[in-house]
């Protein structure tokens, strides 16, 4: 689509910078939490793009890398609270992978402050609202993820 219509338009200059946030969420908890935020009309900034997956277990680490490749300034990965997984254990498996992956990202110098992990249940519309708001504000303050953008530009 044309870049004029995207929220990330003109993102390269810090002034008027609108962060692009990609959120990978599970279908049963966080997606419904986001729906609940809607049902309750809890406003939050429009910068987040949700990719719906069945379970946090399905969220492969490489998707996070890809999100940065397509220009994300921050990434949110969110699913059911421990014990609430629709598939009993997908989130436990995911939690372990994330813990390790964060260490790797840290060593490589990919800014782990731009990757957020959360448990948001179907009842936590307000948590979704406040977390997204916080992510957008913090990312706005950090500015565009220049490091990764320049990598992509060099490619």
């Amino acid at each position, binding site marked *: 689509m044309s870049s004029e219509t995207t929220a990330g338009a003109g993102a390269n200059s810090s002034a008027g910078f609108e962060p692009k946030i990609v959120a990978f969420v599970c279908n049963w908890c966080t997606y419904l939490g986001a729906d609940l935020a809607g049902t309750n009309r809890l406003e939050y900034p*429009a910068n987040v793009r*949700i990719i719906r997956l069945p379970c946090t277990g399905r969220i492969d680490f490489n998707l996070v890398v890809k999100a940065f490749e397509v220009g994300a300034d921050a990434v949110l990965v969110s699913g059911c609270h421990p014990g609430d997984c629709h598939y009993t254990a997908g989130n436990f498996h995911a939690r372990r992978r994330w813990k390790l992956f964060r260490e790797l990202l840290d060593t490589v110098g990919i800014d782990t402050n731009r990757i957020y992990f959360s448990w948001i249940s179907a009842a936590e519309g307000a948590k979704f609202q406040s977390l997204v708001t916080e992510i957008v504000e913090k990312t706005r303050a950090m500015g565009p993820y220049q490091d990764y953008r320049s990598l992509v530009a060099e490619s």
Partner: protein
Amino acid sequence: MAKIGVFTCWCGENIARHVDVEAVSEAISKLPGVACSMNYKYMCSEPGQSLISEKIKELGLTGVVVASCSPHMHLKTFRKTVELAGVNPYMVEMANIREQCSWVHSDKAVATAKAIELIGIAVAKVRRNAALQPIKVPVTKRAMVIGAGVAGIQAALDLAAGGVEVILVEREPSVGGKMAGLSETFPTLDCSQCILTPRMVEVGQHPNIKLMTYSEVEKVDGYVGNFKVTVRKKARYVDIAKCTGCGTCWNACPKKNKIPNSFDYNLGNRGAIYIPFPQAVPARPTIDADNCLRLQSMKKGKELCGICMKNCGSQAINFHDQDELVEFDVGAIVVATGYKLYSIGKEQENPNIKGYGEYGYGKYKDVIDSLQFERIISASGPTGGEPKRPSDGMTPKTVVFIQCTGSRDNAKGITYCSKICCMYTAKHTMLFKHKVHDGAAHVFYMDIRSGGKMYDEFVRRAIEQDGALYHRGRVSKIEEIKVDGVKKYRCYGADTLAGEPCVVDADLVVLACAMVPSDGVTKLAQKLSVGYNEYGFLSESHPKLRPVETNAAGVFVCGACQGPKDIPETVAQASAAAGKALIMLSQPYLTREPEIATVDEKLCAACGACVQTCPFKAITIEEIRDRKGNFIKNTSRVNPGLCMGCGTCVSVCPSKSVDLIGFTDDQVYAELESLLA
């Protein structure tokens, strides 16, 4: 070339107020592969759906994106719509521009821009969608019920009445469970045995029910409709087909009345060959190998005793009996493994839970739990229903009942309310007062929770008619003392309503302890791939809408294994579980969502990462052989009957040889790439 139709909904004003639907349609119409981009006031309405099917027919659409509300709201609706119009129902994606856009963003320009991107994501995905067919799984018309307490008995009888063969598995030598040991039941005070034993006899005799007592589930393979359950039939040393239940053996046993009877919670005794209680079903004895002189001597190569065998007229005793593994093919499984009481002592199986050492349970013989009290006042109990205290057989005059021992106590690690204790404690006071008219029944309680038909009236009756003394407060400590040479138990309590300490010298103390799931339930749950909470209570699929289903398809739960509950609730839930199982078993095939994992067997290296990870044990390593039977390679393979479609396997597969249909990497990466500015 894809021909995608995009249908943007106004949802009346819900979407249109904050999203410029015309601008959205216009922008989306320019996306590659989009053959039409329309908007309409109510896409889910009849005219809205007609618009979609008209366009499908007119333009030969290959994929449809509906931009409206959450897919949780209407994905099924629109799948039906396109299916009726002749397109595979899985060629639909939804863009959630209501809950996740118009309802949360009030700036129209911003919301419109976001809506366009959200639809772009859906268009990118639907382009990669594949036509899918629901999976049909054949069904074995047989059910297994695990646990034969009142829940299992009820479920088995209902299933059997529905014409389904039932395998009823019980770990103990007799069916009946906890209820068989109760005295009388609230709120009617009808005798527990009187209402249960006829049902026990019925399960024993029902032509559709195969009873497997003294047996445990060893292994569960297969999947919904097609389980293969291996049951360990423990060595009983008595051939129950030959045995007539005459009783000669247990009366002749030299160990008669010398071994604590666990059915009486060790308050009464039995022999080495025994039936746990007179009304047992099957009314056939079992030999307790650990205490049998013959069986113990055989370990040392001798053959002592054997009196029971010598006396048995039907030659039913077989000292060489061994555990036997029996396999059953069943289509559905009902779990009804019930509960036990929380361990009051200091030692706990669960490290997060602490005991009530201060109550001296285990140290003082007359500090007992509520199930022990049930046996003491039960007509079939060790005292014949005469209230006598365990230490010296004295009839207690003052009894202290302490509620919430363990329950609702964060400090001890159990947060939940065990739900039935308020009611049975009131019952205990009544039964006690009916037998010891001059006795005093003191109850220490936190709150009285007596919701239920005729429940509060029952508690009021205990207080007002039978004179139970209720003190709102906790007991902090119990000490053994002597008053006039008689052993007493001084209970240091508080009456918070009176605002003063309340010390009672009791002859007997009864602790209403928390209900916890029975032993081994988490192991069983793992075999069944059923979830459980931190206490081990099994997890239902949805607390309100799917209360007896579990996330393991084809496995249902009922009774106290799912959470504390009383008999009426248990029976209702058992019937519900049986009903759900019957619905499932009534169809020739089960239809399952096709959005499951699939393996590219040619490229799979069979490292087993997915096998290890799958929460449903749906993946196995299989051999691929050529037509002549020569081994070619190993591969992972997904059992479509077991896979629930979580996709955790995809994340752990290093070569991405496994993919999740409906959420393939191809689709997900396309969604992401659509965001490329």
